[in-house]
């Protein structure tokens, strides 16, 4: 039973940390996006992701059973404790790179959350029910923007292709599976992500083809984020900003 609890906790941290780290990244655009409409849209996406984080990490804290809160997990852990996939912690780059990263992640979430709706764990299913409506919009919006920019001007096309070439090696990690995934699949909590790759590839290929972009052939995948084994150097920098207040004033509250 104890082992099972730890595996569920690990699974929940992966979901929560993906949403938290990407949400923080997207929030970095607030006040800086190229046009006002995109600025507000990105802020909305970031807020949706932070909202999902509260649900995932709130449940994670409950499962952990050490009296911690979602805030404790978000602000008092260090880089090696995080379980987000590397894709979510990569720098924003230009607007196109941000939207390409968003699309590659949204596409995964839309496929994955659809499965979590039928989770044997009621809380997981309830979180998925709320998050999947948000994600359905996110993926529609990011896909449209990827197509608009990919099939746009010569410059926007070149930037989107460069973004895809840079980000594609980080896609594979989302479909890595280990003992945690096997346990979740066996207990009916969540599907083994490896089984979702085909559906993901179909969705992504359709959109990227519309965007006149070429998917790199290599299946090489950077990994180590979702297992916590090795994050990129970017996560530490992100955390120093995100966790600044708790680091400077430990235990401070509103």
């Amino acid at each position, binding site marked *: 039973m104890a082992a099972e609890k730890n595996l569920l906790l690990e699974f929940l941290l992966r979901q929560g940390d993906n949403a938290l780290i990407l949400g923080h990244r997207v929030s970095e655009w607030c006040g800086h996006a190229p*046009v006002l*409409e995109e600025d*507000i*849209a990105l802020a*909305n996406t970031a807020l949706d992701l932070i909202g999902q984080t509260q649900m995932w990490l709130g449940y994670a804290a409950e499962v952990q059973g050490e009296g911690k809160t979602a805030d404790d997990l978000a602000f008092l852990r260090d880089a090696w404790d995080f379980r987000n996939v590397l894709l979510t912690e990569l720098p924003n780059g230009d607007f196109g790179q941000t939207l390409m990263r968003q699309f590659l992640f949204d596409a995964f979430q839309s496929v994955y959350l659809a499965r979590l709706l039928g989770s044997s764990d009621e809380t997981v299913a309830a979180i998925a029910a709320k998050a999947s409506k948000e994600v359905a*919009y996110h993926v529609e919006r990011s896909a449209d923007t990827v197509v608009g920019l990919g099939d746009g001007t010569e410059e926007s096309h070149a930037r989107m292709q460069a973004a895809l070439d840079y980000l594609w090696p980080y896609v594979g990690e989302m479909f890595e599976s280990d003992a945690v995934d096997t346990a979740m699949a066996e207990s009916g909590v969540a599907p083994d992500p490896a089984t979702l790759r085909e559906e993901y590839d179909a969705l992504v290929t359709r959109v990227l083809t519309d965007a006149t972009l070429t998917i790199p052939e290599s299946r090489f995948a950077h990994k180590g984020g979702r297992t916590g084994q090795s994050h990129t150097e970017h996560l530490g920098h992100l955390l120093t900003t995100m966790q600044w207040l708790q680091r400077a004033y430990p235990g401070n509250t509103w």
Partner: protein
Amino acid sequence: MKNEWPLWEIFIRGQHGMSHRHVGSLHAPDAEMAIKNARDVYTRRNEGVSIWVVEARHIAATVPGEKGPLFEPSESKVYRHPTFFDIPDEVGHM
């Protein structure tokens, strides 16, 4: 500027049965993105159940300079307001 997205006027229906109301305008490359932008800019506090977008250049409007001939003649015609009828008590509140 040539690279500027066109301007769209946004209309949102607050609740079922109410008509769409003009809430503001925004820029977008096409109608689909205008709807998405309107969703993000104007309905984030649960303001709406339906969105209409119209490219601003398609709206024909009265000329401010013609305000006098257009609207002033009706100012002196109070009899057009249905306030001169005695309503029987039995009708109740109208």
